């Protein structure tokens, strides 16, 4: 369970950008290869924000599918299960090109 520490980091990033303003929505990108439990994340977000400018704000999570690229044939394969093999030629010489994202993309602030 590392969602609590993730939420602490998200809160730090958000408040640094929000300065003293009230935050209404936080937009995240979470890749499929990140082991984040969405419900736990939302629950922890509520916990760590009590009494801060983020209290009551909504986490909006944009899920990013995992994609691998083959070094042999160049094909890209979207992963449905975790099998590190090229969908076109079967080679295991592959690199992950998407799915490891974990970032705060933007925030929404209440007008002043």
């Amino acid at each position: 369970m590392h969602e609590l520490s993730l939420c602490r980091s998200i809160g730090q990033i958000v408040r640094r950008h929000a300065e003293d303003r009230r935050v209404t929505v936080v937009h995240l990108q979470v890749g499929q290869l990140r082991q984040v439990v969405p419900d736990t994340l939302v629950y922890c977000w509520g916990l760590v924000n009590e009494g801060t400018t983020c209290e009551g704000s909504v986490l909006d999570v944009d899920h990013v599918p995992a994609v691998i690229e083959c070094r042999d044939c160049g094909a890209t394969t979207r992963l449905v299960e975790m099998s590190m093999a090229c969908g076109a030629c079967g080679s295991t010489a592959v690199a992950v090109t998407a799915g490891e994202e974990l970032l705060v993309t933007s925030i929404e602030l209440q007008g002043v």
Partner: protein
Amino acid sequence: MGRFHRHDDGTEHDHDTELGEHTHDHSHVAGRDVGDMTGYVTGTERVQVLEAIFDENDRVAAANRADFAEHGVRVVNLMSSPGAGKTTLLRETLVRLQGRSRVGIIEGDIETSIDADRLEGLGASVALVNTGNGFGGECHLDAPMVRSALGRVPLAELDVLFIENVGNLVCPAEFDVGEHARAMVYSPTEGEEKPLKYPVMFRTADVVVVNKIDLLPYLDVDMDLFRRNLASVNPDAHVLMVSSKTGEGVDAWLDWVAGA
């Protein structure tokens, strides 16, 4: 992931130059909920951030790694499910390296000093990190926790440092702590499907130590199937067959550590 930051008004800047402080002036245009500037007072405003959530952890991990490099210490992050045999393997490692290499250990444990105590008296310097603080325990080590222990291991005098992570197949895989290599200890009693159930952990390992092989005659586990499952999530993983109880395979593990 950089700390590049773009505002809705089109200005861009890099926060590295701001020493972590957000000192610049914010002059964003009104966000999507307002059509004209008269709505600015009550509308919301959207600010682009584009910051990786692990930035802070990764900065500290990089600082750890730089300290390790400065002192020429190889660092191995040892991970497994609870009870797979990390501490037992470390004990056998220390017994064999005594007088040959100078070893340090950072022992991550949620509440107790039991594992750290088991490693005392074998010539290694052992620093304990209890991860249970306040708000429930963390079931993993992160880079700041490892950094907090560095003052208690004499890096300048070490050849190799082992970090025994908290027994858990999920979160430890997510946190770079500044190590050079990741070793996973797997016990065949856990079944053949573990790589498929915990692919992120198995994918992150440079070496998988199959421990407790002395038990194989008593188990119905199919090790070929395990290897196939492992290869499907991590085609490049080295596999070492070890018994920390009988000592079989421990020398091959030491060879791997020496080249890690």
